[in-house]
């Protein structure tokens, strides 16, 4: 543990981006405008506007905003109009300070107005969609929040669909994300801490958690790691994920990502800490154990028995996806006596004309599938159907008919692929895509013995993993029986009295005991006995 934490870059309290000493505003309006214009490099989308309003001062004022980042209608109505059209009784000898206060207090019908004293802070606000109002003779400037750029509307999540459950997903906008979360967690305990990470991107990163439920140590650790990030840019949540996740050399993810506000809310309610990142609809959840990746938010939206069944199916699909090709290779090259005779003869018959050994055949088909899959993702949507024709007909059926691969191998590869998609989290599904190949090589050299040995190595590795201090295999290893209610099976909601993933956060009761719905008669019985 010590090694890991000390490896996390120097300086916990270092600022997120190192800047030269901030430059204060000068008294001259012209100088300030010139300086800002120089800093931005006279970009065409920056609008400078000088104006005068007799009633304020005879000296000119200036607006600066970035076209496209602001809602121009809003700028016109709430900044330009009041400042340019309002004529108040002229105050004689109005000073710059008076004018400044007048504008700030009376003339800006807008929610968020900030003050900026340095060039850097003003520029930062400018890039956030604020409209700057600079005064001649003042070393402070006003910034009105007029942000309003083109946004994607809220859509159904494309990567994590459900049949029953909310259909809205996060968008690329950080504020939309926090709002969606707040709408679900109407409690004063919800905390949203914002960070700006990335020297050049200044990406907004919001740490969201429930005060009193999230573990303080985990929070401290996440804050420390977020603050330690020194990078040029954060374009997607994976940038943050890679910078803060434990155990660099592991195929297993230790941070979940989700596109679903309900999943994020669910995680936060169970003591996890959410991280919403501006510019991507994928939010992060940490700490995450191995078993978190097999829980889908739909598990809680349908009956517990079917949820439990589906969850067990997911675990078996995980193993199938990881092991099936390896098992096929091992059994057909080392342990033929394990197969029923009829199956063995049938497999042998299929392999009669196949020119490659089982390993080559399996590798060939698995790689083919991965190529197909990648092509399916990258391909323009209009030529998408071509993929399925090429994939299913040419590579599947024809390859078998041409005698290049055996039909059994096609079945093995297809079932492996399908199983991989059963796992709700793409993160862990991807990690076993690679393990599968290692497994196949080991199976071809050492058979079942090799598979078992490698599984053992994997298990040891996983048992040693930590996600922000939480053991990766908990609550199974180390075993905490009372937390097992939501791991392999999901017990009815009324039976989950304490937070099931309590090891992620604090152990707190989340609902009353004895909530199992029962007929009213049964409850009234003792009273009935007393009355006569």
């Amino acid at each position, binding site marked *: 543990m010590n090694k890991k934490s000390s490896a996390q870059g120097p300086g916990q309290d270092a600022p997120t981006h190192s800047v030269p000493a901030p430059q204060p505003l000068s008294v001259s309006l012209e100088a300030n405008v010139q300086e800002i214009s120089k800093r931005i490099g006279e970009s065409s989308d920056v609008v400078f506007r000088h104006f005068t309003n007799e009633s304020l001062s005879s000296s000119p004022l200036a607006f600066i905003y970035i076209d496209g980042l602001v809602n121009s209608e809003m700028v016109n109505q709430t900044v330009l109009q009041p400042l340019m059209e309002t004529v108040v009784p002229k105050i004689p000898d109005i000073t710059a300070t008076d004018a400044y206060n007048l504008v700030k207090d009376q003339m800006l019908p807008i929610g968020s107005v900030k003050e900026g004293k340095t060039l850097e802070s003003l520029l930062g606000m400018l890039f956030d969609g604020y409209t700057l109002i600079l005064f001649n003779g003042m070393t402070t400037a006003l910034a009105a929040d007029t942000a309003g750029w083109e946004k994607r509307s809220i859509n159904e999540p494309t990567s994590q669909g459900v049949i029953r459950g909310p259909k809205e997903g996060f968008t690329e906008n950080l504020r939309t994300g926090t709002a969606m979360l707040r709408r679900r967690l109407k409690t004063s305990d919800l905390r949203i801490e914002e960070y700006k990470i990335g020297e050049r991107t200044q990406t907004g990163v919001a740490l969201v958690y429930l005060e009193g439920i999230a573990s303080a140590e985990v929070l401290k650790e996440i804050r420390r790691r977020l603050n330690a990030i020194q990078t040029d840019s954060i374009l997607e949540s994976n940038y943050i994920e890679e910078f803060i996740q434990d155990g660099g050399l592991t195929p297993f993810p230790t941070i979940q990502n989700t596109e679903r506000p309900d999943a994020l809310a669910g995680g936060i309610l169970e003591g996890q800490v959410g991280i919403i990142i501006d510019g991507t609809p994928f939010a992060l959840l940490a700490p995450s154990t191995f078993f978190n990746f097999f829980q889908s938010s739909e598990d809680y939206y349908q009956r517990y028995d079917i949820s439990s069944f589906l969850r067990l199916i997911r675990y078996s699909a995980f193993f199938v996806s990881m092991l099936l090709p390896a098992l096929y290779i091992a059994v057909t090259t080392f342990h*033929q006596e394990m197969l029923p005779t009829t199956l063995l003869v049938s497999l042998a*018959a*299929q392999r009669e004309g196949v020119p490659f*050994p089982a390993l080559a055949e399996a590798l060939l088909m698995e790689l083919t599938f991965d190529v197909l899959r990648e092509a399916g993702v990258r391909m323009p949507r209009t030529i998408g159907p071509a993929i399925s024709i090429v994939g299913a007909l040419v590579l599947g059926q024809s390859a078998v008919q041409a005698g290049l691969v055996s*039909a059994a191998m096609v079945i093995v590869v297809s079932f492996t692929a399908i199983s991989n998609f059963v796992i709700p989290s793409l993160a862990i599904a991807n990690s076993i895509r690679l393990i599968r190949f290692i497994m196949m090589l080991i199976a*071809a050299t*050492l058979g079942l013995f090799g598979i078992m040995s490698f599984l053992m190595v994997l298990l040891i590795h996983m048992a040693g993993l930590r996600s922000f201090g939480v053991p990766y295999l908990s609550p199974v290893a180390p075993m905490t029986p009372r937390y097992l209610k939501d791991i392999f099976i999901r017990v009815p909601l009324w039976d989950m009295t304490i937070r099931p993933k309590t090891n992620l956060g604090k152990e707190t009761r989340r609902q009353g005991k004895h909530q199992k719905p029962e007929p009213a008669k049964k409850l009234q019985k003792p009273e009935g006995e007393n009355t006569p």
Partner: protein
Amino acid sequence: MNLRKLLNTKLLCSVLCLPLCTSLLSGCWDARELSELGITSGSAYDWEDNQWKATYQIINPSSGSSSMGGSGGGSTSSPPFITFTVKGKTIMEAIQKSNLTSIREMFPSHSRVTVIGDRLAKRGINPLLDIFLRKQDARETVYVFIHSGDAGDVLDQLMQLTKNQGAGIQLMIEQESKLLSYYPGIRMFELAMNLASESGCAAVPELMLTDSKIMDETSETGQTNLPSRLALGRLGVLKGDKMVGWLSQKEAFGLSFLTNTIKSAMIPFASRPQISEQLDSSYMIQKSTTIVQPRWARDHFIMDIHIKGSGVIHEIGSKVDLNNQAALAEMETSIENNILEVVEQSWKSVKKLNADVTGFAVRIHRSDKKRWRSIRQDKNWDTVFQNIEIRPHVHMDIERTGLSSKSFKSIQQD
């Protein structure tokens, strides 16, 4: 200090990882592709010209109907299996010689049956048992049969309804012992166990061809009624490791009662023994247990054999009222007498062969250790066995009489 601890763990880990590397280096020496395997479905052993003669039946995968994959397969005219015969001074020598003629390595793990020629059976099968118990890939779960004649001939015979002849024979004996109970199939390890037991005897079913002709061409299986088929025949009796004689199927059936191996069996009986002794009805035993209790009576052993069972009436050929308890009781007695007769007849033949396939030696050893010790010391089991008197007590219940309570014959005459 922490660093040193870390370094130590790292060192320890890398040292621990070294043995893993060796396992990788030594990998895949025994990897075999499916196309390199000659999947053996059956084997036959015989003794000819003073040497072992082994015949192996190797499955030809490309003859199977499921050979869609691969361009090599698909020809339906190729036989479902091939056989080849090798000879050698020892069994292993013969097996190794098979590599002189076969393109595939023999893979005996899927073997289902082993047929022993009667010449070999009379000479002794100890070496065969040894190799089956010793060799790693030999399967001692194969069913053993005796063939009177050249054992290899049986393996050449094609079977209908199944392509894998070995599996077909296995099915045959399993069905027989489940539905008919003339004799149970005996597996190689059971054979070894029986021969090594106190009685030192075992019974092995005969596998025979119903005609002298061998159907070994695929074109010949095209006909619906094969002139020659594989069939289960008599029961060969082995004593020591040599065959001493045969029991007929009826005698074998009686032996099944004595050894408690009846699973379900059909007993023809006379439904009204006072009127006619003719066997006109059938009773199906659905459950039967035999308890053998030896007891010493002055100079010989008396075996009390309690056979208890229940079953249903399947066929009635006489005029009988099944609602009548007395009639049923009469029928039960008739059935019991039939069984008694079968058992007595069987015991007579067993006694004549002087081979304790009944397992009485085991019973006596278990119930009377002292006397068994003295028998073994005196080595006079054979005389003791000859003096054994059996007292079978049969009790059979008719549980149901089928869907009609009257025989058709009685309806007709009303």
